[in-house]
């Protein structure tokens, strides 16, 4: 169970990174994949806290949640500004080449 859950957390982490690399649609998907990465790190930290009988994992996970909320808010505000400047939040090559 411990091994399955650890490899699952790593798999979710890699899926989040994969989502950032293979993203061809919008910048919002990048932020969602960042949240997936943080979720996988939270689950892994909780898992190790339960299995090593140390409460620090859950405590650290709690503060990772706080930081995730803060950076989501600021990232979304930046996306709003980007939309105001560009008119769209799609990312594909013609949009990126536009001045």
């Amino acid at each position, binding site marked *: 169970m411990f091994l399955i859950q650890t*490899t699952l957390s790593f798999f979710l982490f890699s899926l989040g990174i994969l989502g950032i690399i293979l993203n061809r649609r919008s910048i919002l998907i990048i932020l*969602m994949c960042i949240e997936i990465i943080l979720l996988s790190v939270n689950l892994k930290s909780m898992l190790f806290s339960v299995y090593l009988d140390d409460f620090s994992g859950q405590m650290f996970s709690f503060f990772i*949640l706080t930081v995730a909320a803060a950076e*989501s*808010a600021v990232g979304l505000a930046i996306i709003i500004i980007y939309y105001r400047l560009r008119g*769209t939040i799609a990312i594909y090559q013609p949009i990126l080449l536009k001045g």
Partner: protein
Amino acid sequence: MVLNNIFNTILILSIIFILFSDSAIHALLFLVIAFLNGACVCFLFGADFLGLSLVIIYVGAIAILFLFVVMMLNVKASTIKSYQLIPYIIVILFIVTCQIYILLSKTFTNFNFLEFSYYLIENISNEKFFGQTLYNFFLVVILLSGFLLLIAMIGAIILSLEIKNKHKK
């Protein structure tokens, strides 16, 4: 054990569906499902306060923020869809995951968790323990995270503020 497997599989599937979804709303809904299943996995390991925090903070705040942005902005699905690389990457990911599993099984040998029987000295709930450690030992961290959230709030408000030029009289 069965419940663990169910929540794990739904978690993986919903995250894979985020990458393959057509519109942003579908991706958001799968993200919410992923968060809820992550919270259920937390509950099954006994960390119930962390599971509740995941539901409240991730689903109740962050996913709602995403929903507001999706509603405000004109999020279109791009016409270019290149799914040619995805089978190769999934194969590579599977091989890497198997390697990680083999590596971990060699390092964590004789890891008997469920067979271990311990004597319960005092039955304190997870929330109470969280509160005791948080406010006795991690007080500075709480204050700092409060400042961090304040700064993030100020930053988000200032970034999305639209200053219009006032007419001179």
